[in-house]
């Protein structure tokens, strides 16, 4: 066997021919703006899906730690739904962060294929983007999700990213703030300066966690700089990037939902966090804390939607309707500790607490009372006044933000 490099003289004519062919081929394979019609055409028309019989199969794709779980790791809510409807549910926790998940399903959506997901749960701004691209099936909330009209809080019926509830219904809302492990942190954490100030975090260098969600990270840095996130200009975001770059040397990682593992296993001391996750981690490590910083936090809403071309839309709508029953919403809220869109769940949780008390299970009763009165699960006006939303970005802003953010996460 000889591995000697052999140089072969090649005719200039052959070379030119290759060049021309290459140019032609290059031109032929482009990326179209969503085959199967332009986005504008897709989302203006189109009859809502649903109104039919369930197929008996449902692929429900959600984020980790986002539904109730018994000791075996299965979800009573899903099991009850399966028993009640006979629909076989495959529940997967495949979503770690909005953009990465969208990146994985985007090629199928663009090609007009079934993504294999019947329900996806994505954050408000992503719903807006996906509607604009024609990637979501229109739904008829009044016909197929009567529980939404009956039980959802009024503010959830008017959402700027999905006016008229034509494509989605809320799953849970939550707050982006700070989580920390008091075993590793000497002081009480109350302020964003304890996440961003280069001098302060020196002590916890390498144990600071941040998110890979661009909007969450930039919004917190804007709040630290005293800027209202919803009104941030590009200059404000550039200043926020400075803060993030200064902080970056001490950041252990820019995480998706898996930050929870590193917080739980002691690799992170102070981290950005989503409100409900910390409560669930407290089952294993009761010391972990979540705080809405003095400067404010971010309130967001994750929504259920049916991706274009999904195989089982009727089953998906049945699940959405089911999750809007107050008893079911309460069961989920008791476990996930996010903000439920069903205010009636609060009374159900209080009743469950009474029932537990009557059975002599004071521990459960105390826990349930704490959930029912928690401002992080049923936010008070005072809490709401401290929370902000994401800025709505146009395409140019989104690109510029992404560029600035990419520089932060890739050292």
């Amino acid at each position, binding site marked *: *066997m*000889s*591995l*000697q*490099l052999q140089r072969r003289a090649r005719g200039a004519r052959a070379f030119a021919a290759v060049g021309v062919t*290459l140019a032609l*081929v*290059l*031109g*032929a*394979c*482009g*990326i*179209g*703006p*969503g085959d199967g019609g332009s*986005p504008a055409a897709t989302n203006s028309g189109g009859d809502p899906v649903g109104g039919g019989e369930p197929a008996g199969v449902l692929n429900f794709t959600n984020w980790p730690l986002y539904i109730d779980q018994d000791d075996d790791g299965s979800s009573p809510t899903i099991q009850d739904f399966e028993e009640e409807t006979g629909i076989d549910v495959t529940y997967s926790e495949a979503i770690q*962060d909005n*953009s*990465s998940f*969208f*990146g*994985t399903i*985007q090629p199928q959506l663009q090609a007009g294929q079934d993504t294999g997901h019947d329900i996806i749960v994505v954050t408000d701004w992503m719903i807006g983007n996906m509607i*604009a*691209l024609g990637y979501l099936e229109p739904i008829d909330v009044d016909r197929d999700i009567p529980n939404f009209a009956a039980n959802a809080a009024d503010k959830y019926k008017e959402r700027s990213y999905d006016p008229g509830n034509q494509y989605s219904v809320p799953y849970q809302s939550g707050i982006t703030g700070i989580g920390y492990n008091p075993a590793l942190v000497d002081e009480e954490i109350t302020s964003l300066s304890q996440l961003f100030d280069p001098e302060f975090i020196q002590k916890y*260098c*390498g*144990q600071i966690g941040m998110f*890979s969600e661009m909007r969450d990270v930039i919004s917190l840095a804007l709040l630290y700089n005293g800027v209202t996130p919803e009104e941030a200009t590009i200059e404000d975001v550039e200043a926020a990037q400075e803060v993030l770059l200064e902080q*970056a*040397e001490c*950041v*252990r*990682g*820019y995480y998706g939902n898996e930050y929870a593992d*590193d917080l739980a*296993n*002691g*690799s992170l001391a102070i981290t950005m966090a989503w409100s409900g996750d910390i409560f669930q981690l407290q089952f294993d490590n009761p010391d972990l804390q979540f705080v809405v910083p003095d400067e404010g936090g971010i309130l967001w809403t994750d929504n259920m939607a049916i991706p274009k071309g999904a195989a089982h839309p009727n089953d998906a709508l049945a699940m959405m309707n089911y999750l809007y029953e107050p008893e079911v919403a309460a069961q989920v809220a008791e476990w996930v500790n996010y903000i439920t869109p069903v205010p009636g769940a609060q009374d159900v949780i209080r009743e469950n607490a009474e029932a537990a008390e009557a059975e002599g299970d004071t521990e459960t009763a105390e826990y349930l009372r704490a959930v029912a009165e928690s401002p992080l699960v049923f936010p008070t006006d005072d809490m709401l006044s401290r929370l902000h939303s994401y800025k709505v970005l146009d*395409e140019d802003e989104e*690109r510029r933000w*992404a*560029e600035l953010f*990419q520089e*932060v*996460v*890739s*050292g």
Partner: protein
Amino acid sequence: MLGWLRRHSGVVPYLFLLPGGLWLIAFFVVPLITTASVALQEGSLATGYRLTFNFGIFPEAVGRWDTQLLRSLQYGLIVTVLAMLIGYPMAYTIAFRGGRYKNILLLLVILPFFTSFIIRTISWKFILADQGFVLGTLKEIGLLDQGFRLLATPVAVISGITYNFLPFVVLPLYVALERIDPRLIEAATDLYASRLQAFLRVTLPLSISGVFAASLLSFIPAVGDYLNAELLGSRNETMIGNVIQRLFLVNRDYPEAAALSLILMAGILVSIFFYIRLLRGQELTV
């Protein structure tokens, strides 16, 4: 059919190459051309992409991501050298001293492949966690400083890649060493070569084709790897694979991601070219 083949026996080798050739065209040439095409387009998901022959993207991408490109080449080099230092003695021992345990030892080298690469790398994350049972215990008994960590450091990333690609180094080295006739080494010692001289002038030159194959099999995947940096590293260990992955899947900046992929390929080809030049002095034949 058979008669025709007999008359045109020159065609047979090409027929044998056909399945492999078609495979390469479908899964290498076509994607490569598509990547080149995407790199030269401009636009966005909402408005669609147009081919504008925007060659400026290449210098732009190199300028923006030079740190990560250089870091990847550097990590790839360190990994290759480390894997060679660990793998050569391993392969040597198995080939010359393995005796009847040869097959078992080879099986042990391949054994990690029975578990997924991702699962194995994630396990390292748990084993080496700051407060995990290794570091946690050492910190507890005061052997390590509280702030000490292995994860999220270059050491973790480079060790992770070396660990993952070590079998790719051991196997080709073993094949090359196994084929050496031990009588050649005996002859060298009979001619008054010391054991070191015999190794340097007989064994090593005869195994150089294995060294070549092994170093390519570790260097190329190591430079393009992103999983180890993603799971075991932090921002400061970001490799070019991570940048490409984020550009493709998170930012959906397809042209820049495609351009960077091509630049990475070019970088690897150039490195290999110099490597071949370096080895050319040696006899690359077996």
